[in-house]
């Protein structure tokens, strides 16, 4: 954090708003993406993630708001940055009646690559994403995981500085997901900045920074660890034979925010300033035997649930 490179940001979004008729899909959204980071855009379905990305990539006109990328206004000066932005849409959008190789060549040419440069770029992308064996196949014949890698290859043919990935790993198995994230890490090492949307909390944890949005609004924003710390809670997991009784007892304690069943144990959320040992001692005093793990930070899931509950209370 901080340091001498309190970097200029790659992407700056200010009060971005999109209305469809009288429905507001994105409301007053502000955030920034810094150089060479993976920025996670987290939110449930319908939160407005795709709508935001589409506006930033120039596919959709915003209702109001500003966005700057790489020193240019995205909404008035988009032509100047197109060459340095990449976009992979949520809906698979390569041409499925063309082969993998033809798709890469097509998008490469649209970004101005030709001749040797084009060939090199195709070869390099195919190597990095391990899609060389697919080159002659029609895209329609590929599996979901293969399609996603080919899409990533196509949207990075021109080595953009800023890459937008809209749910690039939805619908693939954990192993493929991990491979995809490794590919993203390589791109970042190469100097790219990535904004990636997801509703997978595990993926969100891997991001350098996060924006959590719901119903088009920013709910939380920052490093995953900082977000967890900011919740002001500690979590203690407790294993016990009599976990049901334990849960009931714990929920009655004034310092316990929540007590959830987890396997054959209970997961206790406490305020950060509370003393976990005091709570545990109280429970032992009730004649319950258990083995506690050491207290830790809440997970993003805890944050997610808290934010959803808070917003329900408000509504």
């Amino acid at each position, binding site marked *: 954090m901080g340091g001498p490179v309190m970097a200029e940001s790659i992407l700056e979004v200010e009060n971005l708003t999109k209305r469809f008729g009288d429905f507001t899909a994105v409301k007053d959204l502000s955030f920034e993406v810094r150089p060479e980071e993976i920025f996670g855009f987290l939110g449930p379905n319908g939160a407005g993630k795709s709508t935001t990305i*589409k506006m930033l990539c120039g596919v959709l006109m915003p209702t109001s708001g500003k966005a700057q990328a790489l020193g240019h206004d995205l909404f008035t000066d988009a032509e100047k940055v197109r060459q340095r932005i990449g976009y992979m849409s949520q809906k698979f959008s390569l041409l499925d009646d063309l082969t993998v190789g033809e798709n890469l060549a097509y998008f490469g040419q649209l970004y101005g690559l030709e001749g040797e440069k084009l060939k090199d770029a195709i070869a390099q992308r195919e190597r990095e994403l391990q899609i060389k064996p697919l080159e002659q196949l029609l895209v329609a014949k590929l599996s979901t995981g293969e399609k996603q890698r080919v899409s990533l290859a196509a949207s990075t043919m021109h080595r953009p500085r800023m890459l937008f990935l809209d749910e690039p790993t939805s619908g693939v198995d954990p192993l493929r997901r991990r491979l995809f994230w490794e590919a993203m890490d390589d791109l970042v090492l190469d100097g790219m900045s990535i904004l990636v949307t997801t509703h997978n909390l595990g993926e969100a944890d891997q991001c350098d920074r996060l924006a959590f949005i719901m119903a088009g609004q920013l709910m939380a924003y920052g490093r995953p660890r900082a977000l967890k710390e900011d919740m002001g809670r500690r979590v203690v997991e407790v294993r016990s034979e009599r976990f049901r009784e334990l849960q009931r007892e714990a929920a009655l304690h004034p310092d316990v925010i929540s007590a959830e069943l987890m396997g054959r144990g209970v997961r206790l959320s406490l305020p950060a300033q509370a003393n976990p040992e005091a709570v545990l001692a109280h429970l032992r005093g009730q004649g319950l035997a258990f083995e506690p793990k050491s207290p830790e930070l809440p997970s993003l899931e805890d944050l997610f649930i808290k934010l959803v509950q808070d917003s329900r209370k408000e509504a």
Partner: protein
Amino acid sequence: MWNRIRALVWKEFLQLRRDKLTLVMILFIPLFQITIYGFLNNDVKHLHTIVLDESRSQESRDFVQAMSATQYFDVQGEVSSEAQIRDLIDKGKAEVAIWFPPDYARELRGGGTAQALVIVDASNATVAGTAMSVAFGVGQTRSTQIMFDRMGYGQATKPKTPIDLRIRPWYNPNLRTPNFIIPGLVAIIVSMTCVMFAAASIVKEKERGTLDQVMVTPVRPLELFLGKVIPIIGMAYAQMTVLLVLARVAFNVPIAGSILLLYASAFLFIVAMLGVGVRISTVAQSQAQASQMSFMMFLPMVFLSDYIFPIHGMPWPFQVISELIPVTHFIRIMRAIVMRGVGLEVIWIHAAKLLLFIAFIWTIAVKGMKRAAA
């Protein structure tokens, strides 16, 4: 800019190459259409001919004799009623019928005008054309002979034309020969390609979201647009060329006028029909809807354009609609150039009307595109 357009066009051709159904449609529809008209049957000698002779006279037998002497007509036999004629022609067993009314011989002998009726199944235009001109020739010859005969007998009064041979083409009342049909066919097929293809291929990309992926590249809207329409223009010209070559080779329909002028005016027409296609693509939500709309555009083009049915016989509202349809004007341009060999001095008015239509359709098409983008 041109490199990007080239990439866009190249991609369209790759897609087309894999889309066998469309490819077949583009290439074979013209062939199919043209054969449907049965133009390939050029041998028109020995037409099956039947006779309904109600006059039962030497004179009528002489006329039939003269007809079969030409070798164009093979008299198959006699029938006894009009209903039989209709039946045999409908079944395709006879192509020509000669009908002498009861008073044929009496009129002829009395120095009046005798009527004979030659009925031709004109659903095959080539057959009909030949049959009619030969029959007409025979009628004229016989008339002249009889006239001379009469004058030889020294009749004082001015003789009437002895035989008034009426020829009545059935099923193709305006006698539409290949020269006449093919220009219309070109116009109809070209417009089908432009409208359906433009609409379907744009809507397909909208549906699949593939347009989004292109919109984020440095490709400008104009380039994207040209990349879409250039291949379609190419296809339309290819179809037109195939048809014209075929017309020339198989049906002996030469282009009387300037080919350059023909292709230049075709450009106006293609641009006009592309406008219709693009306009449809801005409102249609799915490919199915796009092809329905294209088809709806298509019906008036076929029926009100003077292509098959002559427009002057129709009620005035249809005539007004006909004037508003670009196909009508292109068919007129084509017929003028192909059949009559005339130039700009005649076709300019139709070219001007096409330009008006282009201005109109593209204004609303562009409006539609802008609305879709917002």
